[in-house]
């Protein structure tokens, strides 16, 4: 029916880094009021880098696949580097272009992750959309 979905299906069916870390430094949850999707991140840091990250929660193919791709991408990267990324930067990494309403689904995890890091650093989160 649609190519986008076929490609997303792999991440949807078999999301990477799915679950909850037992040993973590950051725990953050958020939800999307549009569809009721929920996300929970648990993150283990080492030298200001993401040593390990897992996500869980119920979501649509777009939110789940974006979280799967996001967690793969950020593992090993420094939290400062992640904070510098814009929404568009992440959408490029994600590689699919959802419709205007559903961009929110694709960005839910990315924005929650940035908020989580800012909270951890005790920085104001007002500039995160």
């Amino acid at each position, binding site marked *: *029916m*649609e190519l986008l979905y076929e490609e997303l299906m792999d991440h949807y*069916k078999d999301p990477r880094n799915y679950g909850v870390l037992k040993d973590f430094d950051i725990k953050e949850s958020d939800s999307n009021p*549009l*569809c*009721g999707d929920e996300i929970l991140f648990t993150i283990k840091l080492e030298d200001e880098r993401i040593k390990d990250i897992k996500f869980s929660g119920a979501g*649509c193919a777009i939110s789940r696949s974006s979280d799967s791709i996001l967690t793969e991408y950020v593992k090993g990267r420094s939290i400062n580097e992640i904070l510098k990324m814009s929404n568009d930067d992440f959408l490029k990494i994600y590689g699919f272009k959802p*419709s205007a309403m559903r961009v929110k689904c694709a960005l839910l995890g990315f924005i929650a992750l940035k908020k989580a890091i800012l909270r951890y650093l005790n920085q104001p989160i007002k500039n995160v959309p």
Partner: protein
Amino acid sequence: MRKDDFPLLKNRKIVYLDSAATSQKPSIVIEAMNDFYTRYNSNVHRGVYSISEEATLEYEKAREKVAEFINALPSEIIFTRGTTESLNLLAYSLIDDLKENDEILLSEMEHHSNLVPWQQLAKKNNIKLKFIHINKNGQLDFDPNLINNKTKIVSLVHVSNVLGTINDIKKIAKEAHDKGALFILDGAQSVGHMKIDVKDLDVDFLAFSSHKMLGPMGIGVLYGKSDLLETMNPFLYGGDMIKQVSLYETRFNDVPWKFEAGTPNVASVIGLKKAIEYINEIGIDDIEKHNRKLVKYTVEKLKKLGIKVYGTPKLNVISFNIDGMHPHDVSSLLNQNRICIRGGHMCCMPLMKKLSVNGVCRVSFNLYNEKKDVDELIKALNEILILAEKNGIAV
């Protein structure tokens, strides 16, 4: 049924199956509003020049039309922004008369607009909320003992915007009145879809929205029994709702204007009047029959595909899910076939929890839908099922 009366459905090649969210508008409604803006746009109740008189007369004629439509008096009709504002008006105005530990009875199938206002005000005033649960068939499991002499307000949805259940209002309203409680009805999904007679139902208040019954957005109605409206405090203060104002005191206007502060949405009120005239011309019973037939047809087809349908849909909405697929994904896929349905929690998060789902897919109808629309939906759903199976995500 008269699809050609709806310009949007002629202009866009879509299958519109989301009328419970908002219905499409017939051209006579659009033209009536256009006529107001191009011929007699002016403020109501203020000017003494001709076009302002014309606007005021049309505005008040619309009130009469709405009153007649639900068998009420014009003075019992308050124009609001919609169901949500009507219910907020009631919550804010009625809460003053409640004491600590009084009770408000709602149900598990309420739209957020008939839950959150009560919930928030109850919390602030130490008032107890109680809920009628729903059974496996998606019907209210009403136990008369839920209403006691502490119960002051019972507020329920008439037709569920998720399950399509038509609640037995008369029985519960009677029980509420016997125990001295007020009965409020959320008619967002029932008014304009089936005959509503406030006297026959014997409800104290009824809230509904124009935009779900072929009328324009931005306008809604609160019906209230005269004697109750007389003693209630206004919810919004300002112009138009006053008789006499001094620096320290105000004498409020008479009912219903006491509740209509500020410049109203005159164009939409005029559009709503046309929508009611249009419904009357076709006949509300025929509209109901038409929608019920489509619902029955759709439920049968969905079940044949092995798709899970929630509750026992009757009037105009059907909710379902495809195993393993998020409702938003199903709606996005259907959108590629130009089919518009709703996917998500439907502003009923507690009900979603009860159904143990994150969301549902919802199909809903109005008089312009045809069997052909359903056939296109079923064909596309079948393709989605094949796609899901191919990717190993569904049964």
